[in-house]
């Protein structure tokens, strides 16, 4: 909830604003008694949030141009210009009207604004300070006028906004969405017709004044004036303002519609056009205001505190949203996993149901397979010697002159013959050649080679042959020509190999 001190030349009204509702909490006279009552009111309201909205006739507006600057330089030059213009800068503001190009440089147009009598605020601001309240800002009704004009649908580049406030008839000239000039003309109790006529005459006077100041363009186009009629007086105002004028085009806005435009749902009895400005100050106050940073320190700290907590909450909310999305994804993944597991369980159950019909085994299927496969592998790698002996026997029948002394059959390679034998089976035959003269080298060699050739069949390969006479270039050839025949038959060795499956 925000409290709004509506500051007029006579009395000051304290409203509370919350949820589109304005409630009048207290009324104070503008003298010392009022200040005392205000101090009493503030007792026990430490930390309350206040805004001051001034609706006074003595408000000065002065346009200046300063070099186009930013940051601390701009702030310094603005403060200097304010100090040059006003004796008391405690309540002074500089409103930017945009930039302008001069032949020399780019300048910024400023509207310097303050009150002619700032001292009337001092005891009230001091009371707020002493009560340890938070001052959001000191606004004047004209500072809020551009926002109200926008809410009321002002379209053109220039608009004159006219409202009948408790303080008097308020006229604000808004150009390009920015305040250019404002005045307050005090009013007395009068009939609606008289008030409407007064509005018309004062508006035309102001238009004439602005034209004299050359604020209005010289093209002769009329100035649109938005007039918010007091409650129930729109018809009277339309009748009084309806007749066209070359300088001003009046547009009357119903008070109820204006309240709706600023989302004001309730205002206390007796509140006039100022309720619209108060609502805007409560809901969305403009950046420009009059209070110094010293007066607003508690509010700034409070706003930073709220900003920090809001940032923390925003961070938490963002994390929660992100985590929520992740949790949803996780839930989906878990559901998928559960479905997959269920399907696996179904398949396993079906498998077990089918395997239950298999023949009864004395072991598990896996071990049955492992036992038989490994046993077969061993059996295939373990040939029996019978077939080799049978093969040798068949070949020997064709070579009766060959006599075998030894047969060495083995699985694998012998250590002596690693390089030139095959992995598998090895058969080494040692024997003699009979019925041939020892001196017949060629005949003996040919017979052994034929015998070896015959053995290298039926899957057997000839790995090596050691002839009675080494006729290879790598060996040593010996002979004893003319010597005595010993009668010993020439010996040979044949090595066969066979690959195992």
């Amino acid at each position, binding site marked *: 909830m925000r409290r709004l001190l509506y500051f007029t030349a006579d009395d000051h009204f304290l409203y509370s604003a919350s949820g589109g509702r304005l409630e009048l909490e207290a009324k104070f006279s503008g003298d010392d008694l009022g200040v005392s009552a205000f101090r009493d009111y503030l007792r026990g309201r430490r930390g309350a949030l206040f805004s001051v909205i001034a609706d006074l006739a003595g408000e000065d507006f002065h346009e200046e141009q300063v070099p186009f600057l930013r940051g601390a330089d701009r702030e310094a030059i603005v403060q200097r210009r304010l100090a040059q213009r006003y004796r008391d800068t405690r309540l002074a503001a500089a409103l930017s009207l945009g930039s302008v190009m001069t032949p020399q440089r780019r300048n910024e147009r400023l509207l310097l604004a303050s009150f002619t009598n700032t001292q009337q605020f001092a005891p009230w601001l001091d009371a707020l300070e002493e009560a340890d309240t938070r001052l959001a800002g000191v606004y004047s009704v004209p500072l809020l006028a551009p926002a109200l004009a926008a809410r009321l649908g002002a379209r053109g580049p220039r608009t004159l906004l006219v409202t009948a406030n408790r303080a008097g008839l308020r006229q604000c000239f808004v150009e390009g969405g920015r305040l250019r000039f404002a005045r307050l003309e005090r009013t007395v109790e009068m009939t609606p017709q008289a008030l409407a006529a007064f509005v018309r005459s004062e508006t035309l006077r102001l238009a004439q004044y602005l034209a004299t100041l050359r604020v209005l363009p010289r093209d002769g186009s009329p100035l649109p004036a938005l007039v918010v009629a007091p409650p129930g007086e729109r018809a009277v105002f339309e009748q009084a303002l309806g007749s066209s004028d070359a300088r001003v085009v009046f547009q009357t806005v119903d008070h109820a519609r204006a309240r709706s435009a600023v989302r004001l749902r309730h205002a206390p009895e007796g509140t006039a056009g100022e309720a619209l400005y108060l609502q805007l100050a409560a809901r969305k106050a403009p950046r420009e205001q009059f209070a110094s940073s010293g007066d607003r320190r508690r509010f700034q700290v409070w706003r930073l505190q709220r900003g920090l907590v809001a940032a923390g909450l925003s961070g938490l909310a963002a994390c929660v949203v992100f985590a929520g999305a992740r949790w949803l994804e996780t839930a989906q993944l878990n559901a998928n996993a*559960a479905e997959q597991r269920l399907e696996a369980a179904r398949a396993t159950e079906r498998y077990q149901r089918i395997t239950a019909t298999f023949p009864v085994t004395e072991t598990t299927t896996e*071990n049955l397979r492992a036992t*038989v496969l490994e046993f077969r592998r061993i*059996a295939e790698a373990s040939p029996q010697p019978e077939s080799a002996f049978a093969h040798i026997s068949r070949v020997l029948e064709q070579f009766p002159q060959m006599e075998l002394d*030894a*047969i060495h059959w083995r699985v694998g390679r012998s250590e002596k013959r690693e390089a030139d034998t095959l992995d598998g089976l090895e058969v080494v035959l040692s024997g003699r050649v009979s019925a041939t003269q020892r001196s017949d080298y060629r005949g003996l060699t040919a017979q052994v080679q034929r015998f070896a050739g015959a053995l290298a069949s039926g899957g057997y390969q000839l790995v090596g042959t050691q002839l009675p006479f080494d006729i290879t270039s790598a060996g040593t050839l010996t002979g004893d020509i003319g010597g005595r025949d010993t009668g010993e038959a020439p010996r040979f060795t044949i090595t066969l190999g066979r690959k195992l499956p």
Partner: protein
Amino acid sequence: MNFTREDLAKLAAPLVLALALIGAGLAIVWSANDARAKALTRLAEAQAERRQASQRLARIAEEEREVHEKLDVYKQLKRLHILGEEQRLEWADAISRIRRERELLDLSYRVDRQKLAKSVPGKPANVDFFASLMRVQLDLLHEEDLLRFLADLRASGNAYYAVKSCSLTRTGQAASGTNMTPRLRAVCEIELITVIDKAAKR
């Protein structure tokens, strides 16, 4: 606006609260990410489990045929006592019986210590193949005696007989009229293989 020490003190609590809120948010995010990573792992495991179960189910017909076929071999191994503990006494009896029946002249043998030849992974337990190396020496009248000895040995069962080597040599002894003189000598190395299936029902 310049902040005083008092202002900064007022901002400390909200700052701590904001940091705590953001920290809590990050913890929630971390927790959610962790849960998601675990869910992904669980899903991958479940998918693999389902794929495996489906593939096993698809292979069931082939498996049934395989069981039928392998079961015959398995039963035969059991009947021949190749499956089971070593039967060393049975081996000795069998060799004595063969020598007697085949009227072999001289036969000596030695069986070494049993060794683990191979352990095949199974479910729920491994299948172990053991081998005991036997060296046998025979005096023969004819080479056919060796072949008969080996055939009889195989027929006796109690192990799978894998012949690793066999050497057949002439003794060089001349035949005498009174005693039967061995003309050949055979020396063989034979692995006696037995299988222990740890999952087999006793």
